[in-house]
Structure formats: C-alpha cells, structure tokens
C-alpha cells in the first residue's frame, strides 16, 4: 500500500473482509469511506476474492480429460477409484460423464450427406473451386465470390460482407447445370442441423439469403431428384 491508513486504531484485521461481505459495522464503513488507503486495500482484496472464487470453482472435480479416460477404461486402479468416489457426490461431473458416454455411443450421428442419402435422392457434395479470375473475388470492393461445382452443377455465390458494426452477411446465389439455369430448387442454410435461412431458386436460377450471422454452416439445395450440399460453408 503506497498510502498509510489515516487512523490505524479504528480498523482491525477482519474488518475489511467483513466490509466486503456487507457485514461491517457503521464505524468500519465510515472509516473505509474516509481512508483512501483502506479503500484501496478493500478494492484489491475484492479482486483476490473474485480470483479465489473463480480458481476454486469445481477445484476438486477431475478435469474432463480424466473423466474421458475413466469412461474409456484407461485409468489405473487408484485413479479409477478416486474418480468413482468423486462421482458419487458430484452431480455436475456425473452429467459431464453422461455427455462423454453419449458421444461414444453416437455411431448414428450421421453427416448431413449421410442423412440426405436416406431420402433415396442422389446426393452431390459441391466442392469449392478457385474463382476464374482473381479480380472477380473483389469486384465492387464489398463482395466475395465463391464457385462450387458438383457433377455438372455450378453454384455461384456472391457474399456481401457485413457493414461496420454488424456481423450479418447477404448471400446471393445462382445454380446452373451444364450452362443452363436450373429452377425449382429449394435452398436451405443449416447450422448444426438447424435451419437458419432458406429461399427458392427462381426461374433464372437465382436465390438470396439475407442477414446471415457469421458462423459455420452447411448449404443444401434440393431438386426433385437430387440434393446438392456444400458441407463446410464458413462466414468469417
């Protein structure tokens, strides 16, 4: 403490802790309000208390790695017994262990492509191809162009970057097959299997998805007999 307490006889060990706990006497509160040194000390102790609260949060719980190794049967006898004992009294760790078990038992967690295959339709995975001319990618200074191809289909996407202060993208697209437009498609943007946005492909092959937040998506276009999927569609 750079400054000294203005009246050391007015304050004793434990008074600052009581002050932070809200149980200090009016005399102690009055002293701290008058004394810059004690006020600064109380502020510093408040930081320490908050650090203790964070550092000791679930301090006795096994780290997730150890829960994983316990679940996988990779711990030695002593470690296994210690984790088992802890689990008896810790509901949070039991919940986390249940999550780990479920993760191991998810062979049926199909990818989007695998799910769509169940429909009986042809499923094509569209892959990103380099833009034909580098200048295209920066045309207008605000749009990025991405071209995806899948078995004769071509999907051209023009991505308008978010304006300053926002994180919402505007997406315009066109689907073509062998140089001709392909109408009657339904476009769906998915995030972790949840539909985020959608549109219909118009008679000119165009579609638009508006105000899409940055994130990791899959883009799916459904035609009467075919699905086209862009699996890793990232908007930074």
């Amino acid at each position: 403490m750079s400054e000294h307490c203005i009246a050391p006889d007015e304050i004793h060990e434990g008074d600052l802790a009581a002050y932070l706990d809200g149980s200090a006497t009016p005399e102690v509160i009055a002293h701290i309000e008058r004394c810059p040194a004690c006020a600064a000390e109380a502020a510093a102790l408040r930081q320490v208390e908050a650090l203790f609260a964070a550092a000791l949060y679930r301090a006795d719980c096994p780290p997730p790695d150890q829960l994983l190794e316990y679940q996988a049967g990779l711990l030695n006898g002593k470690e296994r017994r210690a984790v088992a004992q802890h689990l008896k009294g810790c509901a949070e760790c039991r919940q986390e262990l249940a999550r780990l078990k479920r993760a191991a038992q998810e062979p049926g967690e199909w990818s989007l492509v695998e799910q769509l295959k169940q429909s009986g339709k042809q499923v094509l995975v569209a892959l990103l191809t380099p833009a034909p001319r580098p200048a295209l990618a920066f045309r207008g200074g605000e749009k990025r162009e991405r071209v995806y191809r899948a078995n004769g289909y071509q999907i051209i996407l023009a991505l308008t970057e978010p304006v300053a202060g926002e994180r919402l993208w505007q997406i315009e697209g066109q689907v073509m097959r062998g140089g001709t437009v392909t109408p009657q498609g339904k476009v769906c943007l998915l995030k972790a299997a949840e539909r985020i946005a959608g549109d219909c492909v118009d008679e000119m092959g165009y579609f638009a998805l508006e105000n899409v937040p940055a994130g990791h998506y899959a883009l799916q276009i459904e035609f009467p007999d075919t699905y086209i999927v862009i699996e890793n569609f990232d908007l930074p």
Partner: protein
Amino acid sequence: MSEHPLAQAALDEIVRRCREEQRRSSAEENGYCYELFRRAIEERCDEAWTAIQQQYGPLLLKWAHARMSDLTVQEAEDIVGEAISKFLKTWAQRDIRLSEHFEHIGGVLGYLRQCVTAAAINHARRGAREQRRIEWARATQDKVSSSPCDETFLDEICAEEQLEAVREWIRTCVTDPQEQLILMLSFERGLSPAEIVRLYPHEFPTTTVVNRIKERVCKRAKRALLNSDYDEQ
C-alpha cells in the same frame, strides 16, 4: 513389424483409399482409415497425422459446433486443437497399441468424438469460472455502500494460466488446516461467515474469527499474486 495386413502399403495409397472409404458407407470399410490412424499413433508417422488432420478436420469442427452451437469459428478451432492434443496424449503417455482398444475405425472416431466433447466441456468450465469471477465481484460490490474500487478488472478476461497460478499458490502457501477450510467454505462452496459459524461452531466460534482468517489469507495472496507479475511464475 506390424501385424496389420495393410502395414506394407504405401502411405499415399492408404490416404487415397481412406478418402474413398470415408465417402462410402461403413459397410464398405476395408481398414484404410484405421491403418492411417494406426500409423499416426503407433508409428508416430507425422505424414499420416497430417493426412488425418486434413481429412477429418472439417468433421471435428462439425462435432464441435454440434456440441456448442454458439461457438465462434475461432473457439471451435481451439476446441478441435485441444481435442487433437488430448487424443494424441492418450496414446503417447501410455505406449499402448491402437488395436488393444479399437478394432474398427468406428471405435477410433468414437473416441475422437469423445475428445471433442471433453474439450467442449473444458471450454464450458472455463466460461463458468470467468462468469463466477465477475459475478462474485459484482455481488461484493452490491454489498458495500460505496464504490471505492477500480472496475476495469471485470472487463479483463482472466486467463486460465492466471487461475492456475492462484490454485498453485493455494496449494503451496495455504497449509494451515483452518485457512484451507475457510477458503473451501467461502470460495468453493460460497458460504457467508455467519453460515460457516453455524456449520462449524467449534472450529470458528464467531464471524470475527472467520473474517480474520479470510482477510489474512487474502492479504497474503494479494502480495503474492496482485503485486507481482504472476503470469511469469
């Protein structure tokens, strides 16, 4: 020498066939992907590991997003990185063969998926700790009548390394059983001094005793942790 039937195949061939395998259904799986993992783990083959990261990276990202849908792209990449380290560490530490645990690529990927889940749980715990630090400081602020303290520390993200330094300090510098108990009751279980006195009347007969011990430990910690650059400890 490995006993696996594909052990003699060229790595390029293994990588190519594994890619084909991944595109088909698991019924057509012929062990190329499993062999790729076996070489990465048992033979510590860096090229095999690079191929795995290229091939399975997008899948791991998908798993990360599926477990925590509000992740940013960077957070998801961090979780995947942590999961891969975890996966590798499991085998490196134990020097066990892949085939002792998994007979099929499905089992390997299942464990990899668990590694992603464990990394996601770790991420959630870190978030909860940070939330607790901020809530604790705000709750304390609500209890005091004036506002003498600097609020900027609430806006700073507290790195996990800092919290580990605090835990290490507690482990090494708080050896008195009464102090240990007060720390546990106050900051781990969140009990007030009055509640501590009620639950432990023999150890702590009054709230004054509790507050004295608590303040003593906090002042020592302040000198050790806040007045020095404990990031570098």
